[in-house]
Each structure stands twice: as C-alpha cells, then as structure tokens.
C-alpha cells in the first residue's frame, strides 16, 4: 500500500519523537526521513506539498497508541 515505507519510518522514529516531547504534534515524513513536526495537520500537509510536490509524503499525529476508529460502511484497504 502507498505510504507503507513512510509508516515504517514513523514506527521506527516514534520512540525518539515521544522522547522529544512531540506527542500531539504532526510529523511530516518522506520516504525514510522525518522532515519536520507541526502543530496542526493542515500546516504539515501544506509543508509536504511545498517541499515534495506530487511525491508521496505522510502526515501522522504523534501518539503513543493509535485510536480505534469506527465506520458503518466498509472502507477499502
């Protein structure tokens, strides 16, 4: 799936990000590199578009455990 590489980077870097007090911020990741951290997902997304153009990038909230979300319809993997 798209962004699998970026998700692996996030999981690898998560302990360091938490140690730096980044919990609740939004991290911008491109490939296997953490680019930057932002206060809002909107800021992170804008930075991603400016820096990486149409190339894939991940915007991910830094959190110890991922929340469980629910949908009444089937989502597509």
């Amino acid at each position, binding site marked *: 799936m798209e962004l699998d590489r970026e998700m692996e980077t996030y999981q690898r870097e998560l302990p360091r990000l938490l140690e730096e007090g980044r919990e609740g911020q939004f991290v911008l990741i491109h490939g296997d590199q953490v680019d930057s951290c932002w206060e809002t*997902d909107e800021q992170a*997304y804008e930075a991603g578009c400016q820096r990486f153009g*149409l190339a894939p990038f991940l915007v991910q909230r830094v959190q110890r455990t991922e929340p469980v*979300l629910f949908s009444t*319809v089937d989502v*597509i*993997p």
Partner: protein
Amino acid sequence: MPIIPGQLDHQGRAVVAAQVSVPAPRAQALQAARLQVSGPLALRGQIDPGASISCVDHAIFQSLSLTPCGQLTIVTPSSGPNPPRTRLYRVGLTVLHLTGNPTFHLRLACVVAQANLAPLGIDLLIGRDVLALCRFVYDGRAGTFSLEY
C-alpha cells in the same frame, strides 16, 4: 448560525448536497507540475453519527488527482478481528446550504477515509469529525432532519 433542514429519504437517511475539492496546497503543487486541477465535484452526503471519520467514495480521489497522506485502521461491521488499514486523503469539503448562498455553506479542510459508497447511492459519509462542528437533529417521527453549524 446557518441551518440546513431536510426530509429523510425513503430509507430514513439524512442526505445533504456537498462538494469535495482539491486542497489549495495540492492544487498549487499540481499547477507547479503543469497539471490540470479538477474543479469541485458534487456529492450526495449521508449524515452518519455512527462513523468516527468521514468517508468518500474511492472513485472521487482519482477524479481529483489526489493521493493519500496517511493510513489508519478503521473497524467496520465486517472487518473481523484484524481490521485492515485504509488510506486517508486530505480534501476540501463543502456542505451546501439550500439557499445556494456561499456565505452560508459549511466549508472545511479535513482528512477522510476511502470507502466503497457508490452501491449505497451516496458519495460521502459525514461522520462525527464533521458533526463535532454542528448540531444535528434527527426527527424520525416527522421524517425530517436539520444540520446547524
């Protein structure tokens, strides 16, 4: 505060007119690459307080040349004990006020999940991430609903 009144459809669903568009940063990136930016697409959106996150039919993202910006695990009625991860997309979302006056539209930038909604006759599921900004009243006896924001 603007309010959208409506009649429940024959399945008891609260359906509103909406638009989804390319977010401004993505539009600028497309223009920089000399690619066309598609205009907003009209959607039929069902209001669903049972959904944590809003969902858009997967075909819409392709039409707007959008690519995912995240992944998330979402539990659904048929996902079983190991729900799969799904792609997340950032979009511009507008719920249209019945007057057509843009001042009264509900506009927001949000992250949505992709789903297969076309078989349900809708393109958009408006979940609690959007409803957190609204007051939604469902009157089953009267067969009406209202969305205030």
